[in-house]
């Protein structure tokens, strides 16, 4: 450790990406979720204007699941999907088109069939997420544009996470945008950069996990999904991430009913949590939280490094 520069300037890595999350405890706030989360994300625009995305947990119907897909050529792709998938499934299904994204509502028992059919027959479609409640919308562009494009501020739901990106690890593309989802109703946003993602991706591929990108965050998401697939809780999966993931990270993760936050042991990447009786909110900065109801009465704190924070409905 000798020979440190006398001109060391202090603080190391600074702003890269902005992340937000909102977990509602009070169901009466659900109609406002999209508007609140959108406002939080737009406030974080200057942390990264490359691309933006939101995962939102909305209405779910018993026995039904949603598959969110994206296309660069939505007019042709979605009508082809609509025409071809129905006969293959042998039953009607609902498709809600929203700009470059479409949400397919199918029987939960058909999700695997539908995903496989899309992967095999529709090479220009990308699966964003699947699950009982989650829908992911993400595109290249600053948060305000992405919010407007999909009407994210009109959406309701129980919880959601969002990200605005300053790309460092892979290309500025829709697929490189966050949130990432690698398991049913499981989503993750990340501020930071992982250093062992190539090795970990190889290990996870060997275990049969499919990757869409070369992005480091997708590896973190896939890692957590693989742990959850082994039967551990999200909280325990995050605990094991502390052992197995190397690099800088502040993660905000969500499941069907859960919401978690984890920072690496060095904790360079910023994080602020706020909690009231009505909600738990996360922001890369306090600025993201200032418009939330009763924020002045909220408990506001900086999450400790290497401590798992987790809430569940």
């Amino acid at each position, binding site marked *: 450790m000798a*020979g440190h520069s*006398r001109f060391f300037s*202090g603080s190391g890595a600074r702003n890269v990406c902005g992340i937000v999350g909102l977990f509602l405890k009070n169901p009466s706030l659900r109609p406002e979720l999209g508007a609140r989360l959108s406002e939080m994300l737009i406030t974080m625009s200057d942390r990264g204007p490359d691309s933006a995305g939101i995962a939102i947990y909305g209405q779910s119907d018993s026995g039904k699941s949603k598959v969110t897909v994206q296309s660069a050529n939505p007019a042709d792709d979605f009508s082809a999907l609509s025409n071809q998938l129905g006969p293959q499934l042998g039953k009607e299904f609902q498709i809600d088109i929203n700009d470059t994204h479409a949400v397919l509502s199918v029987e939960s028992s058909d999700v695997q069939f539908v995903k496989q059919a899309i992967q095999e027959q529709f090479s220009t479609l990308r699966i964003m997420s699947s699950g009982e409640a989650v829908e992911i919308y993400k595109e290249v562009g600053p948060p305000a544009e992405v919010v407007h494009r999909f009407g994210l501020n009109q959406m309701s739901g129980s919880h959601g996470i969002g990200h605005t990106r300053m790309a460092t690890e892979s290309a500025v593309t829709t697929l490189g945008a966050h949130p990432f989802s690698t398991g049913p109703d499981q989503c993750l946003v990340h501020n930071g950069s992982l250093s062992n993602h190539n090795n970990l991706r190889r290990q996870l591929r060997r275990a049969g996990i499919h990757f869409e990108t070369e992005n480091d965050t997708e590896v973190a998401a896939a890692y957590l999904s693989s742990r959850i697939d082994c039967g551990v809780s999200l909280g325990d999966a995050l605990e094991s991430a502390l052992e197995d993931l190397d690099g800088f990270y502040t993660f905000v993760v969500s499941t069907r009913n859960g919401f978690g936050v984890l920072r690496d042991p060095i904790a360079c990447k910023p994080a602020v949590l706020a909690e009231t009786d009505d909600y738990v909110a996360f922001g890369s900065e306090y600025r993201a939280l200032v418009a939330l109801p009763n924020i002045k009465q909220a408990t*506001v704190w900086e999450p400790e490094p290497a401590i798992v924070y987790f809430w569940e409905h």
Partner: protein
Amino acid sequence: MATFDLAACPLRELNAELHRQAAIVREGGAAEQQWEILNPRGSHAVAVGVDAPLEITVRGNVGYYCGGMNQSGTIRIEGSAGPGLGENMMSGTISVSGNASQYAGATGRGGLLVINGNASSRCGISMKGIDILVRGNVGHMSAFLAQAGNLVVLGDAGDSLGDSIYEARVFVLGQVKSLGADCIKKEMRKEHIELLESLLTRAGISDMKASDFTRYGSARELYHFDVDRFDAY
């Protein structure tokens, strides 16, 4: 007292106005020296680069780099501060009633920084003469590479306190989770007790006994070249 409302006017106008008033003070003119800042709502760079004895009260939470490069100013924050509070301050006083985020007082060359809540990681990193007093706890890697000045902690310190420290002094009343490389516990001699008493007095603290603190500083084994330790470098 003049009031500036950040909900009504942009931050750049605030800092430009403070710099304008500071220039008047330096030239011996009649300046508005007392300022109240409303609705900071986590804004970055509030009251940076103040270089005259203005008295500034910020009513609310601030974001990154509040009071950075402060010279002679007295800045009070009624709330909490984001990362880089008082970074590279030269002189004057900054106080915060709540908590401060990462690297408060980083690279500071002088003046007094008082944090009434907790400071998170890397408090006083690479400090070069500033005095920092924290009523609560400090996070990991505090006083990392600290070169000169004093860090006083009334609560506990996190991991790796004073890693690779040079000639700064660290005084802790509570527990230290672990010491960093080349940082050791040191004897509290008379001159240290007198120094700490004066620091506590400057920070307005009268209910603590200087002799109850533990002093930490450099073992001076890392930064003096020693050929016998070549392998360790």
